[in-house]
């Protein structure tokens, strides 16, 4: 394994790496480093924010125009991508396989449901609610306030789950998270009368959930009072989702290059060596869990507000695997990878498979979506374990064989 043929060798920067400016070349070299580093993200962000505009120009183009996702779909894609980037912190950075990420998504969604709906009929409390009469029953906080609350609440749940379980070895941890991922939806389904108290409204879920908005005061500068009642509702949800995603990506990139991020990667590569070097294992792992959960919670709360409801049927194990698939396809540990994998797979899930099915004349394609994702996971693992956009260090780890060598070859 140590002497791989040249074509597998990881010496040269990858094509994607050069593209992202790490290899450099030609005219780009003339620019100052900071500009070079930020050029591509800036272009991508600019293109993404103007998507609702330039999407219009292409709708007439045959095939390609028809494949472009609608703005509503794009919101869902971005929310899932946010979760993929969050999961990437846990799985990709710290190397902790989490098969129950959907639990965090659920926790975020229900935080929004509790704090911004008519669910609690006993109280009437408004704080920054938009588009509602003052006397509407229930707790109605501003969604802008709920997003951080949901993130922190979910991070606390992440810590509570993590504290007893993070001691466990990798595959045991995967199973425990899977167990939590199964228990939490069932708890949500059953918790409609805990000693007569209706916590989650059982299988019916909680809806409607309030919409984000800026209240009546800022209408003068063009900001809508409430997204749901706004004229171009989808666009506002899209731009806000994009801002959240940019925030998530920014945090995750900063974290990766921080002291904590280096500790995560050290743990991922060799736990014993990391501990010997003085990395506090439990605290570092718990941070990974809490931060991954934080973004999952924000994404869940925002999605619940977008859909105006939280339902237990949204929180299946499948979602956890779907998110994991995004991270793996994109390349574990790579933020760009998680973004590309997330956008691609959630597009396939929302629109792509159905459109492909129509193109090739098999209507059933979406029915087999999870088989297709399973196949993708297996193929990526077998033939390109670094994912589409490989993280440099992870690539070296996989290709140069940091792990123990076996005496007999697996292939012989």
């Amino acid at each position: 394994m140590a002497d791989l043929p040249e074509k597998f060798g990881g010496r040269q920067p990858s094509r994607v790496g050069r593209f992202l400016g790490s290899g450099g070349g030609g005219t780009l070299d003339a620019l100052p480093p900071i500009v070079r580093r930020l050029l591509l993200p800036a272009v991508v962000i600019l293109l993404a924010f103007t998507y609702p505009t330039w999407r219009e120009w292409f709708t007439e183009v045959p095939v390609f125009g028809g494949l472009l996702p609608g703005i509503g779909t794009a919101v869902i894609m971005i929310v899932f991508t946010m979760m993929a980037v969050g999961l990437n912190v846990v799985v990709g950075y710290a190397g902790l396989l989490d098969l129950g990420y959907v639990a965090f998504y659920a926790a975020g969604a229900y935080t929004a449901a509790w704090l911004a709906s008519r669910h609690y009929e006993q109280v009437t409390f408004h704080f920054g609610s938009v588009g509602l009469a003052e006397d509407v029953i229930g707790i109605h906080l501003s969604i802008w306030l709920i997003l951080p609350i949901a993130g922190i609440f979910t991070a606390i749940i992440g810590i509570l789950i993590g504290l007893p379980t993070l001691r466990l070895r990798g595959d045991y941890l995967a199973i425990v998270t899977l167990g939590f991922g199964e228990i939490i939806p069932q708890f949500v389904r059953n918790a409609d009368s805990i000693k007569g108290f209706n916590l989650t409204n059982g299988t019916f879920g909680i809806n409607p959930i309030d919409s984000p908005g800026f209240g009546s005061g800022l209408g003068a500068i063009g900001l809508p009072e409430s997204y749901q009642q706004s004229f171009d509702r989808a666009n506002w949800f899209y731009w806000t989702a994009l801002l959240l995603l940019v925030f998530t990506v920014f945090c995750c990139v900063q974290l990766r290059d921080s002291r904590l991020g280096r500790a995560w990667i050290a743990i991922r590569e060799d736990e014993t060596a990391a501990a010997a070097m003085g990395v506090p294992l439990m605290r570092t792992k718990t941070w990974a869990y809490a931060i991954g959960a934080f973004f999952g919670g924000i994404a869940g709360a925002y999605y619940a507000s977008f859909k105006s409801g939280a339902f237990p049927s949204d929180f299946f194990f499948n979602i956890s695997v779907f998110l994991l698939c995004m991270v793996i396809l994109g390349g574990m540990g790579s933020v760009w990878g998680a973004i590309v994998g997330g956008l691609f797979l959630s597009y396939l899930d929302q629109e792509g498979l159905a459109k492909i099915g129509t193109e090739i004349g098999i209507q059933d394609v979406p029915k087999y979506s999870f088989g297709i994702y399973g196949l993708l996971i297996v193929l990526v693992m077998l033939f390109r374990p670094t994912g589409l956009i490989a993280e440099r260090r992870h690539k070296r780890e996989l290709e140069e064989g940091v792990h123990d060598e076996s005496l007999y070859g697996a292939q012989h």
Partner: protein
Amino acid sequence: MAEEAAPTESSPLRPGRAARFIPRSPVGWLGLLFVALIVLWLGRNLVADPSEFFSIFFIGLTNGAVYALVALGYTLVYGILQLINFAHGDNFALGGLVASTVIVSWFGLGGDPSTGAVVVGIAVALVIATAFSSALGTTIELVAYRRLRNAPRLAALITAVGMSFILQDIGLVGWGVSFRTIDPLISNDVAFSIGDVGFQWNKLTVLALTVPVLLVLTWLVRSTKQGKAMRATSMDMDAAAMMGINVNRTISFTFALAGGLAGAGGLLYFLHFSSIRYDTGFQLGLIAFTAAVLGGIGNLSGAVLGAILIGLIEQFNEGLPLWSPGSDWTRSIVFGILIAILVFRPEGLLGERTPEGG
């Protein structure tokens, strides 16, 4: 960090068999208290309605026997590769679906068939389902897991999850989305009675098929050359290879064995619960895995003990008249047990504590 301190259990003195169950920490005592409360609850129910209690007990025992067949597959593969073979549960479901095709479509059993036809039909279905799942298990190992044997362990685990979804969709394509059902083939007349509690033929059949399989398996692993090779490979793959054991063949054999058990389990599940579907294997796979962990993963008798305990817990939870949480909570309870065992006693009830286990 306090957590980094070695687990308190790793004392150099090896405790005796009985002493292993004496708790050595406050958490251990809490666990013991919890078990005591459960025993009290069971006792209270037993006194309230003994015949109901025992009939529930027998249902749980039979379900546990079916789970045991699947749990053994998890334990066998884990023992040798330290891989949680997620696809195993779906292999089980496909085995059951194949058996349902043999029984319903080929033999047309249903309604009120003669005893001879039932015996022949079940025997043929058993052979075909076992062979099918066995071949499927081996193929998956050959195609996917073998290439990843030197890769990081998570890679193989993730691949297994992917395989599980592929198998589910194969079931979906082949057998459709609706449940395959069958009228009970084996009468539920009472075969024998203990006191006023009857044990029916259909339950007896399940046990009559499971117990010999377990005995043969134990003999195979304990006393044959192949079993010795398996145990050697599970202890140290490299050393086994140096001793002239064909490691790849041994691992293939293990997967074939596990697959065969899954196939037989699939048939029994179909006969016993009368319905099976493409996604049955996912849920049951998790239950069976929990059973294997409960007993001590890698330990054959542990898997059987764990499976029977899980079968009993499920039935007691759903059936007992006094203070039982009810079927809404069954899955939560099973997974709660899984989490508690992994966190507090990762070596399971019968397993040995390994350095990495804690």
